Every structure is written in structure tokens, then in C-alpha cells.
């Protein structure tokens, strides 16, 4: 009888000791990286203004097809945006400036001195349309929980490393079967549809220079049309978070493999590299149109 009790006692003791060990081994902190990133995303999106420098790049089998880089200044309070972009596809490149001020959107191509001005007539309607859902704290909390549950154990793949002075870095790389099958299927379909979208390859659609005053036809990026075995191969995220929980630097990469109609294999990598600074200390630039060449364009054309 004593032997039995000793066995039960020992089993319980060792078992509970292991449970306590797991708690000390920071199992509760699972997804510490995930939580840090989530907080940072919330803080960063809540900032009322910021300046960002971004580089978007699309490579096919290591060769760059499309590169967009530019600066963006945005202020939610002033409802203003200003920025510039340089779009390069191989040899061809195009400069673009854009502003959003006083309810008008202004585009200017680097190769002309005409400002194309679009006035939004239904600004109030659109603002109302945006007010549902995401702004409501209850809906937001519900969504957050849903996302948490969907992310599930993927949280364990998010690594957090501390830097100096409260700065943190978050890294996540998902490869092959680590990527949830549903995400892979939906993502692959989206990528495939995007690559096969009509206006991407039909020159007639791109030659319409009237809308933003830029000849985009020169910029055909020659993206491959993947039709078979489209698969998301790798997803990676690197984010640097400062002591105030703002994401100051972020790199997101997505690698997609697949075959085109001719059966040639492609590996497309899409990457976005975004630097953020002057958080809550940014005023978007404005342009004074007095005395400048302008061209009125219809706002509804922009929404197409």
C-alpha cells in the first residue's frame, strides 16, 4: 500500500513539476513576438501622421521586373497625403508626384509640368461608408480575437529579439507546409488572378493616359502569366519596433512558384521594404496650383 501511495505521489509531483517548468519556460509568453508585433501595428496605425519611404520590388527568377520606390507623407487629421514615386521596369522608368489636399487629388508626371486635378464630389458619402465596423471598439476586439484564434500556433513561429534601449525586432519565416493550406490556396488564387488580370497585359487598357496623365504603357512589367502549380513557397516578415512601439522599419517578402503556359518554371518574389519616421511630426506637402498648368479629371474615373 505504501509503495502504491509513493508511486502516485511521485507521479503527481514530477508531473506538476513539469507543468510548473513549462510555465517558467515561458509557455505563457508563447507568441511574445506576435503580441509585440500586434501592439506595434495598433500603435502605428493609430498614429495621426508619419513619413514613410518605401521600396516595392518584384523579381522573377532573381531578375527584377518592377521596382517602385518613393516617399509618402500622410496625415489623418489634416486629411492630407503627399508623396512621390519612381516606377522602374527594366530600362523604362517614370516619376510621379501626388497630393491629396482640400478634397482634391493631384497627380503630376515627372515628364510633364501639367498638374492633373481630381475633385471628389462624394467625399462625405465615402467618409460615412468607412465609419462602420473597424472603428467600433467592440467589433475591433472581436476581430482581434478571431485573428488570434486563426493565427493559433503560428504564433510560435514569430521570434522576438531585443535590441538596445527598448527597441525590438520581430522575425517570422514560414516555408512550405508551415504555411496553412487554406492561406496557401487562397493566396495562390489571388496571385494567379492578379497576374492574369486582363488590363495587366492588354496594352489598350494601359495606353489611357488621360486618367492620371501618365503613359503607363511604357511600363509594362512583363510579369509572367502563371497558370499551373501556383504555390506560395515562403512568407517572411521582419519588423523593427522602437521603444514607443512604432514600427520603424518593416520588410515583408512573399515567394510564389509556378509554371507559365509554356511550362517554364518561375519563382516570383515580391518584397516591400518600408521605413517610417517623423511619427506625429509630419505635415504633408501641399502644392499651390495658382499659375500652374492644370488639367481637370473626373473623380469617378479614378475609382475604376
Amino acid at each position, binding site marked *: 500500500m505504501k509503495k502504491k501511495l509513493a*508511486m502516485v505521489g511521485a*507521479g503527481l509531483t514530477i508531473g506538476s513539476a513539469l507543468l510548473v*517548468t513549462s510555465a517558467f519556460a515561458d509557455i505563457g509568453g508563447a507568441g511574445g513576438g506576435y503580441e509585440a508585433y500586434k501592439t506595434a501595428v495598433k500603435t502605428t496605425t493609430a498614429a495621426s501622421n508619419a513619413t514613410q519611404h518605401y521600396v516595392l520590388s518584384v523579381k522573377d527568377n532573381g531578375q527584377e521586373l518592377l521596382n517602385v520606390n518613393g516617399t509618402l507623407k500622410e496625415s489623418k487629421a489634416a486629411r492630407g497625403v503627399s508623396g512621390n514615386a519612381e516606377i522602374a521596369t527594366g530600362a523604362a522608368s517614370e516619376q510621379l508626384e501626388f497630393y491629396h489636399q482640400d478634397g482634391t487629388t493631384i497627380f503630376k508626371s515627372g515628364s510633364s509640368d501639367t498638374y492633373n486635378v481630381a475633385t471628389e464630389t462624394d467625399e462625405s458619402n465615402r467618409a460615412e461608408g468607412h465609419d462602420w465596423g473597424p472603428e467600433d471598439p467592440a467589433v475591433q476586439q472581436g476581430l482581434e*480575437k478571431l485573428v488570434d484564434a486563426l493565427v493559433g500556433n503560428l504564433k510560435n513561429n514569430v521570434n522576438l529579439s531585443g535590441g538596445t534601449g527598448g527597441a525590438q525586432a520581430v522575425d517570422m519565416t514560414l516555408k512550405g*507546409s508551415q504555411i496553412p493550406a487554406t492561406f496557401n490556396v487562397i493566396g495562390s488564387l489571388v496571385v494567379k488572378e492578379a497576374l492574369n488580370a486582363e488590363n495587366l497585359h492588354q496594352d489598350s487598357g494601359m495606353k489611357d493616359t488621360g486618367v492620371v496623365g501618365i503613359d503607363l504603357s511604357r511600363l509594362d512589367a512583363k510579369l509572367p502569366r502563371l497558370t499551373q502549380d501556383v504555390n506560395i513557397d515562403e512568407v517572411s516578415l521582419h519588423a523593427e519596433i522602437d521603444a514607443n512601439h512604432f514600427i520603424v522599419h518593416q520588410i515583408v517578402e512573399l515567394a510564389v512558384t509556378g509554371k507559365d503556359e509554356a511550362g517554364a518554371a518561375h519563382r516570383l518574389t515580391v518584397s516591400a521594404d518600408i521605413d517610417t519616421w517623423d511619427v506625429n511630426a509630419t505635415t504633408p506637402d501641399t502644392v499651390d496650383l495658382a499659375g500652374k498648368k492644370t488639367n481637370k479629371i473626373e473623380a469617378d474615373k479614378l475609382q475604376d
Partner: protein
Amino acid sequence: MELLKRTTVNELAKLYARKKTIWLLAVALILPFAGLPAVRQLQDGLGVAGVASDQYAVTILNVMTLFVLPLLIFMTASDMVSGEIGDKTIRSVLSRPVNRSKIYAAKLFALFVHTAGLLLLVFVASEAAAFMLPDAGKAAGGLAETAVAYAASALPLFVLCTAAAWVALGFKNASGALTVCILLYAAAKGLALVFPDYMVFSPVTYMNWHQLWLGGSLPAGRLFAIFSLLLGCGMVFYTTGYYVFDKKEV
């Protein structure tokens, strides 16, 4: 030790004497092939790989550990414990010159062996199915990694075995125990939606911890923490279960 081995063999013999067990083994063998048409449809119809052939076996394992294998474990555990208590056949086991600690251990060992056998069967079947996919050329690529994932997935399933046997001890009929096992499991999974923060301490959260063993870089600290949590839960369920079994009037 010999006694324990023989009692385990005895339990397994009883298990495989049931037609139901053989049928369920057949189902586990066929299920990996049932996923093939869906994947082929994705590949031929929509042109997306969806599940590449080197990832097929792991995808099957994800589905299996989520509900198919837990369900089979619950059924076996309820038959083995509640069923025998209910129809009093457990008396014929207890009347043997084997003490109750060995009988309870043998029942769990038999459950572990059965579960491991199921995993092996699913592994072989899903790898065979992967070779039937159009891009079978790379099916052999992830074989070693997949084998590791299958082996790793045994641990949370073993913990589930101890938990199912623990629940089944409180019932005198197999269907009651099965129903309660399923409800408890579903509730534990469902609570994760409501309390994601607390669910890190629940063993059912880690049914798919095999995914952490994929992808080359192993998060050692995390694996250790989950390993101790699962082992700890298993030990607590096993010892308390044994204690209840030892005191039980049948």
C-alpha cells in the same frame, strides 16, 4: 515487466478482436486517398498547387490530429475502460494474478501502441497518395521532415489517450464516455476562440505541435516548454487515473 508486456498484448488482442477496430483502421488507411480528388481539382481546375506533393502528408496529418485521430482514440479508450466496466468483463481481467497498476498501465500502453500504429498507417498511406499527385517528382523531398512531424505528433495524442482513459473511468457505458470525451475536446478547442491567452496552458492547443518541427530552424525553447507541458499533463492524468482505477469497485 514480462507481466506488463503480456497484459498489454492481451489488451491489444481484445482490441483487434473487435470488427469495429479493423474497420476503423481501414478508414484511416483510405482517408489520405480521399483528399486526392480535392487536391487534383485545385491543380487541374484552378491551376494552383494548393497542397504540393511534398506537403501532402503533413496536410493530412494536420487534419488527422485535429479530429480524426482524437475521435478514434476516444472510441478505443471508452471501449477499453468504460465498456469493460459496464459489461463487467473487466472482472475477468482483475481476477488474474496481475495487480491493478499493471492492468491500468497495460491498457494505456495498448492505447499508445494502437495510436502509434494508426499514425504509421496514415503516414504510409498519405505518402503513397502523394506519389499519385501530378507533381509527384518532388514528393520524396520532404520525406525525412514529414517522418519527424509524424513522430512528434504522437506525444500530444498519447496525452489525449491518458486524458480519455481518465474521463472514461467515470462511466459505465462506452457511448456515454465517448460523447463526453468529444464534448470536452470540442469545448477545449472552442474555448481557444474566447480565451486565446489562457489556452497556451491547455494540452489540446498543441495537437498540431508537429508543425513546429518543420521548416529547418527548431525553436528549441518553445519545443522544450511544450514538451514539458504535455509530459506533465500526461503524468498527472495517468497517476490520478491509476489512483481512481485502483480504488474503483467493479
